[in-house]
């Protein structure tokens, strides 16, 4: 038997695979396709305090091996969530993480306060990195100070463990990671989507209603992997790797680069059973390689740069 469990310190996962926010609905959407209890956990779609309209369509554009989205966090608001959805999620034995959004620090804190102490919630994931809210794609995770402020404010508002979700649209992601860490985040998830643009040549118009959107999918994996590795090399805090993961091998690559767990996003759209397939592939890889505890693979990248010889 291979031990797939992962200990994040503040949270024990039965395996390292979580479903990523915004790509897994409120979880229930996937119940017809997979046994949710098999997951390490899932992160629900981003919640503001109030319900939210989202961006005007079109909201999606396919790109080579990628997807640009500008959903704009349409959602039911945290109250309706706790009243109508949360009770239905309690039956599942898997980590439930709530993706917390806000227009300002106060709103993040209000959402966190509302959720604080509720049964069934394993952690909050602070979404300070969504690129398709402001028209220019800006978000708190693009600046170390804003990051610090939001995390600190939420930290004061809740006793639930905090995961801060970082943006890849920065010069140095480790600087943002340090801020989030210093402000008291228990873990970091990286990364959110990459700010992108697609246009219709005939119309001379952006393809998305919001003009800019966020790029996800297999095409971003090499960039996300780099950021996870940079951050794990510099900081000692549990990392959750995200970006284009669509196979067990992809997931394990993030773990080798220092992620303790991973999130699967866009792949859920291609195969609703992607998460469970990935878990099975991880287990199979461990079996083949004689790895008895998957956690042992975390951070095992050997950085032996071949020096030129002669």
């Amino acid at each position: 038997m291979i031990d797939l469990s992962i200990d994040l310190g503040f949270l024990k996962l039965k395996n390292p695979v979580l479903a990523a926010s915004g790509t897994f609905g409120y979880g229930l959407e996937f119940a017809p396709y997979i046994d949710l209890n098999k997951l390490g956990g899932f992160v629900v779609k981003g919640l503001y305090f109030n319900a939210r309209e989202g961006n005007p369509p079109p909201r999606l554009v396919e790109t080579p091996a990628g997807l640009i989205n500008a959903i704009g966090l349409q959602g039911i608001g945290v109250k309706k969530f706790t009243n109508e959805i949360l009770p239905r999620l309690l039956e599942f034995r898997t980590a439930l993480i709530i993706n917390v959004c806000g227009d300002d620090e106060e709103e993040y804190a209000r959402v966190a306060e509302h959720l604080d102490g509720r049964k069934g919630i394993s952690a909050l994931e602070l979404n300070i990195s969504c690129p398709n809210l402001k028209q220019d794609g800006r978000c708190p995770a693009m600046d170390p100070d804003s990051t610090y402020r939001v995390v600190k404010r939420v930290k004061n508002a809740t006793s639930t463990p905090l995961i801060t979700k970082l943006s890849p649209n920065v010069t140095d992601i480790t600087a943002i990671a340090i801020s989030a860490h210093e402000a008291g985040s228990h873990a970091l998830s990286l990364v959110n989507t990459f700010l992108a643009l697609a246009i219709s040549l005939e119309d001379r118009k952006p393809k998305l209603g919001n003009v800019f959107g966020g790029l996800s999918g297999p095409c971003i994996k090499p960039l996300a992997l780099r950021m996870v590795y940079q951050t794990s090399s510099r900081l000692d805090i549990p990392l959750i790797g995200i970006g284009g993961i669509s196979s067990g091998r992809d997931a394990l690559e993030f773990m080798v680069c220092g992620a303790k767990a991973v999130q699967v996003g866009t792949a859920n759209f291609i195969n609703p059973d992607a998460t469970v397939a990935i878990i099975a592939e991880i287990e199979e890889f461990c079996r083949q390689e004689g790895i008895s505890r998957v956690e042992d693979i975390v951070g095992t990248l050997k950085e032996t740069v071949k020096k030129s010889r002669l």
Partner: protein
Amino acid sequence: MFTDKEARIVKKTLQNDFAALTMESPAIAPHCFPGQFLMVRVLPQQYPLLRRPLSIHDRIQSRLSLFFKITGEGTALLARKNEGDTVDILGPLGRGFTFDRNFKAKPVYVVGGGRGIAPLYFLAGELKKRRVHVRIFYGGKNSKELPLLAKMRSEGFNLDCSTEDGSYGIQGMVTDLLKKSFKSELPAFLYACGPEAMMKNVYILASEHGVSSEFSLESIMGCGIGACWGCVKRIRKDGIGTWVKICEDGPVFPGQDIIWEKND
């Protein structure tokens, strides 16, 4: 909703820019209703990335058909598949047409534009089985854009056609056919699928004549299963216009609930 990762193609026909694929899928076929759709994986590779939404065009026992226009890389690659190849499909998805209605022996109109005929063919067949008097109104740019014509005629469907260039049927739009027809009779119900501008005009006409209607809408889809919120359109819910998921609450909506796009 089921996934069939290996639905085998048993028949393929190509006609101009259109392709029809019939697949053996005992897992999915029995559960399908007209107006529902499948999410179809184009290739097993990571490119093209997303599944393509395609309506269920026909169902005979354990077999399903798709009928689609080649409009881009995904549909072109799908059309290149051959008999014996397999397709990875997910479905049936969405809410289809509500057709188990009491039409009080009045005729029912089925209005299709171009590739929009795909789901309507399945619908018309089911209505016919229920001995409903179906009249099909079918419009396209030219006779090449009316690919199912011969087939539907040979199956005895009552058909009125229009083409913009007059190469088949009357010269004009499908709404011209409807306008004329509405003068002599009003149908019990109207179902339509086609380009958005056409559907909008059909809706306006139908509602002016007090004819109830359902329309099948298209939207770019990420997941097809209600998880991504990518496919929304403005739909009236409890009187209020909101962004509603086409894949889950649709793709078929009552005409009066749709908030049609403004013309550019």
